[in-house]
């Protein structure tokens, strides 16, 4: 599936494995949370990611996090906004500096919110038009609250400048 980063399509180097799939011994792999131990048992140099279900507390990753290069959060439907809190907690509470990937069925109108909560990439749902997502990224230049991206202040008060140069 197409992968979006900063409004642009990028190549996806990761392999996502399911609960019953064989785990490749080499290469970047995303494992489900219940196979985290298997993933961690791979050679230390191999890149590891984990897919976090939306009902999981990010704190379960605390011990493993130094070994993780990617955490995937998911939207079972666009209405289920738990992934926003998970992404933010990963950045803010656990100081996770790796890739936070969004999967599932988010809307393009949620893209800017996701970035401001700390997401790095979005695995676009089937049939999504990357151009609509790119537009959503450029739509607004101002936000009204702090975020984990620590955007610079715009004028006075709470406002932040989002940096997608107005045109």
């Amino acid at each position, binding site marked *: 599936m197409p992968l979006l980063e900063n409004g642009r399509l990028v190549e996806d180097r990761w392999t996502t494995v399911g609960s019953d799939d064989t785990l490749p011994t080499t290469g970047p792999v995303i494992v489900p949370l219940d196979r985290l131990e298997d993933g961690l048992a791979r050679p230390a140099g191999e890149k590891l990611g984990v897919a976090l279900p939306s009902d999981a507390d990010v704190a379960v990753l605390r011990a493993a996090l130094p070994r993780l290069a990617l955490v995937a959060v998911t939207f079972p439907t*666009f209405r289920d*906004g*738990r992934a926003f809190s998970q992404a933010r907690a990963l950045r803010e509470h656990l100081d996770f500096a790796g890739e936070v990937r969004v999967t599932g069925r988010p*809307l393009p109108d949620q893209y800017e919110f996701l970035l401001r909560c700390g997401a790095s990439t979005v695995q676009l749902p089937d049939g999504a038009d990357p151009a609509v997502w790119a537009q959503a990224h450029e739509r*607004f230049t101002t936000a009204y609250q*702090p975020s984990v991206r620590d955007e610079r202040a*715009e004028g006075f008060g*709470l406002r932040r400048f989002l940096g997608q140069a*107005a045109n």
Partner: protein
Amino acid sequence: MSAEILATPDTGAAPVGHYAYDQVDRAFLHDRVEQFRDQVARRLSGALSEDEFKPLRLMNGLYLQLHAYMLRVAIPYGILDSRQMRELAHIARTYDRDYGHFTTRQNIQFNWIRLEDTPDILARLAAVDMHAIQTSGNCIRNITCDQFAGAAVDELLDPRVHAEILRQWSTLHPEFSFLPRKFKIAISGSPNDRVAARFHDIGLVAKPGRHGTVFDVFVGGGMGRTPVVGVHLRDNLPEEDLLAYLEAMVRVYNEYGRRDNIYKARIKILVQALSAEGYREKVDAEFAAMDRARYRLPPETVAAIRARFGTPVLDAPSDAADRLAEARRTDALFDRWVRTNTHPHRAAGYISAVVSLKPDGGIPGDATSAQIDAIADIADRFSFGEIRISHMQNIVLGHVRQDQLHALWQELGRAGLASANIGLIGDIIACPGLDYCSLANARSIPIAQKLSARFANPALQERIGDLQIKISGCINACGHHHAGHIGILGVDKKGEEFFQLTLGGSAGNDAAIGQILGPALPEDATVDAIAHLVDAYLVHRTDGERFLDTYRRLGAALFKDAVYALA
């Protein structure tokens, strides 16, 4: 403070009572309107299905009702200026059927909107710094506030600057725009609760502390199918921690609130499930873990936002109170209106006036475009152009000189807006009901009109005294029937509209949920039943006792007999 505002060429003097937008705020709204224009075009061309379009229109306050689209326009903390009010009149005249409906959330709804007109309506609203953002959807809704904020003699501090800060903070909040369910915050600066703080997802009561403003915090109140009085979460939250603490509160809700059943998804259910103590522990843990510096609300930020509020120059002549007293002595009708429709002001020679949107036999909260224009003109002449919408669906003019009150009342009379019934039995709250709403089981408006007509006599209303009737057309309780001294709930009985009575509810400091009196009744029998309840109260009350107090003292049995023993 005003020097900076006056130096801003686009705003001129800041509007009294609310935040003045600047170019950045306007550019943001413009972008939002253009985004929606694009979405509507994609819907009209068929590129978007109704399923895909629905969440997008809901984020802009556009509902599909029984007969047409309804557009709900935000009135932040219930305050608007005369220029904005005139734009609402224009929209009512041009795009609706010449009227608008003011709501219990201090907003206005237009009930007969065409989808293709909505981008233009939103553009017109944006031109006067208004919008419909977050008037629906599972996000933080309009922040509501005391209708006498900044004016009431009993107020400790004006909560509107903090209401504006919360409005900005919650606008397109990246983490909290897809919560389990809608989320309502009310804020008051008075120890006398006029915002129903204990019936909101979060209720805040601001007060001066030893080192600046602090807040008492209530959580988990609400109406709906499961009415709950909110719990007192904490006292004396320092101003600089306001946003951090709210982030922690809403985040715990976003993470743990139920998403499997929309009737169990409000924060009140979570607080009940975890217990107040359990919820408080999670919030405190989150608050302790978060980057507090990032979410700190520094005094400079509060001051910068405060600086964009206009403040009225209150300089009434020294004989203003005497002249009001003289006018009351010579005009008995005016005197009655003053008794019922005013509220004491903090400044000598001033008073707050309440414009009733509950005329005899009328529809609670409705106003014609001519009336909306008239209120704008009256506000310009008598109250610094500032207009407040109350959660009781009335309009308040906050700062009126006492010596000008008689002239104001006469102007209201000419516009058909001088009903003297505030806080009385005619001051009914009602939801739109089955006349408009696809969720309703019964029509709320006709029964409100019948009750209003039945008790039209102002002398009778005044004799009955403080009595709040609140009507909901279904169990979702938009008419707040749980909090009515007398609550009326529309139910469907085999295809017929019936009404269930509840007694003893209150939204104030003595917040309580009304108790069901007995079997539901048909519409006309319900109107008769309320007349019997009132008769029983008049017989049994002691001096100065409200209906609610008599009910609480004597219990339900007497009132039950009054309604059902006759049948």
